[in-house]
């Protein structure tokens, strides 16, 4: 080994790391120019446009109940437990005294979390929420896939309405068929995921204030959930999170290389 030698190409090295604080696997997603949005379908993702994103790491799977419990135990954060008229929280409520998640749901993505909860988790873990563009890059790839695994829908590859589970599913139940080539799990289906972005019309421009963390407004949700069918469970679908929390909304975190 000579001192002059520059490091070999990155792709000979491991792309999945373990984040030290919350022990979650994170996958390296190479930046680059990709297609965002589409000209067909729901008007929320019109028009199709091209965009550059920088390299980043994204959690391989959404934050699960077991992982969220480590966070609330270490920070004394309130456990998700609500009784409201507008959302069926019963199957997902945590035990307020024991601060434990519902039985048999350890590997299910945590739901009933607000955007602020997701940000608090990210702050504790030293991470951040992905931007809407990063999320779409990770799910769609550089060639603009329709679903994380390819262009054809398959009811056996994600927890959408077609899978007919009627609830969240353990992370990885649809692996490896439903994963992206990089190995990201449950990008589409299972739960909607909070992003850092404010819901503004396309074309996406990260510098127009939509990534401000202080501004008020609705944050973009990505990835669709077990309630949505194949027409919504797309890599391009976006929803404005105009509610505080819901029983089909979770999150995953991202981080940038230094």
């Amino acid at each position, binding site marked *: 080994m000579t001192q002059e030698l520059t490091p070999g190409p990155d792709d000979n090295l491991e792309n999945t790391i373990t984040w030290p604080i919350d*022990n979650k696997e994170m996958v390296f997603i190479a930046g680059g120019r990709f297609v965002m949005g589409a000209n067909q379908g729901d008007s929320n993702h019109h028009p199709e446009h091209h965009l550059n994103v920088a390299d980043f790491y994204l959690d391989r799977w959404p934050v699960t109940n077991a992982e969220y419990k480590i966070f609330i135990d270490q920070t004394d954060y309130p456990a998700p437990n609500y009784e409201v008229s507008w959302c069926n929280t019963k199957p997902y409520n945590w035990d307020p005294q024991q601060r434990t998640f519902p039985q048999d749901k350890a590997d299910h993505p945590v739901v009933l979390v607000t955007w602020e909860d997701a940000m608090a988790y990210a702050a504790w873990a030293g991470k951040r929420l992905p931007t809407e563009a990063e999320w779409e890059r990770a799910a769609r790839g550089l060639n603009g896939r329709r679903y994380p695994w390819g262009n054809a829908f398959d009811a056996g590859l994600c927890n959408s309405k077609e899978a007919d589970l009627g609830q969240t599913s353990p992370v990885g139940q649809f692996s*490896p068929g439903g994963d992206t080539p990089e190995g990201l799990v449950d990008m589409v289906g299972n739960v909607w995921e909070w992003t850092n972005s404010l819901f503004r019309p396309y074309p996406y421009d990260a510098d127009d204030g939509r990534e401000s963390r202080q501004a008020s407004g609705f944050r973009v949700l990505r990835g669709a959930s077990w309630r949505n069918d194949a027409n919504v469970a797309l890599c391009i679908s976006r929803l404005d999170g105009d*509610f505080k929390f819901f029983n089909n909304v979770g999150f995953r975190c991202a981080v940038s290389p230094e």
Partner: protein
Amino acid sequence: MYKYSCRKCPIRNRCIEESENPTSTKNMVRSAFEARTDTLATWGLLQKQCLLLEADKARSRSALSDRLRKVQDERVDDTDDLEMPSTMSKSKGTVIRRLRPDKQFDPPEQSKAKSPDYLKPVSSSQKKGVSKPLRRLSSTKPLHQVGDEDRFWLTILNSGHRIALPTNGEISFGRFDPNVGIPPDIDLSFEDREFGLVARRHAIIVARNAEHMIEDLGSRSGIFLNGRQIENGLLKPKDHLSLGGVKLIYDKIPNEVFEQAKSKQVRHKLIVTPTGRKFYCPINKKIVIGRADPQVNFVPDLDLSQEGEVARLVSRRHAMIRWRYGQPFIEDLGSGFGTRFRGEGLVLGQSIPLKPGDHIWLAGCVLAYDIET
């Protein structure tokens, strides 16, 4: 020989800081990475104590990650040359993949100083506690008939738009979305168009015995009553309420308004709330409200077809306004998806007098009735 790349390491600066190298070396290493002149020797200085490797060791393997790892290994055996590029190789059971595409665009040259705020980790000062668990609103007071003198309304501060509240029943506030959900009784999207802060399901006002309680339906922007955010609360006259960007005042309807409505000098108007379009009603003339259909050559007096997606479910002949004793009355004309009025569905054949501030829900498209002097 290295497992992880220092160049794309997300915690490299911490690693440099915590390494046992002298400060001058640390600075040299740091500037080498910034200038992208790092060599394997630079990496070697750091990877004596790679934090990522330590995290690997320290980590207690959860059943979840084990399962996913197993699944991933199986996949490599199955699909060795199906979709992965030829550069993919396998070693010690872990997958090493070529992630950079062949046609690599130049990565955006972003020095660390230029890195935007949204790419930095969340600072812990942004932590915020969740709101308290919500209570379900209930009222057990007996119902009784209430006259005009006990009626209340909400006035929107900016536009002067008035929303009469039912004395008994429920009335929901929100924003119409053609893709998701059920249209609300009162669509505030036009009033909120500059702010975009009203949720699809924003709030509900429960009326019992001419008392009104407002309850948040989990909207992200919330409800503010006299400047304080509330989950639910009882409304009192002159209360200031804000839903998203819409500011409203809750108050009793003055008796003069009902007197005015009977006089012949006022103009009666219908406002299509999703778009703010006004329609002035000629007195003592029947007005059919519906959707024009060129196929059957039918045009109602008040055509809602131009309102777009929101009027998709409106019937051709949906409802009618009929005049009696100089007063407008609303009737349903057997529409497919029905008419709701003051928190209740209109029964076929029922004829109810319109009072200023009343809102008529026509299968998702909401019309407001008001008077102008």
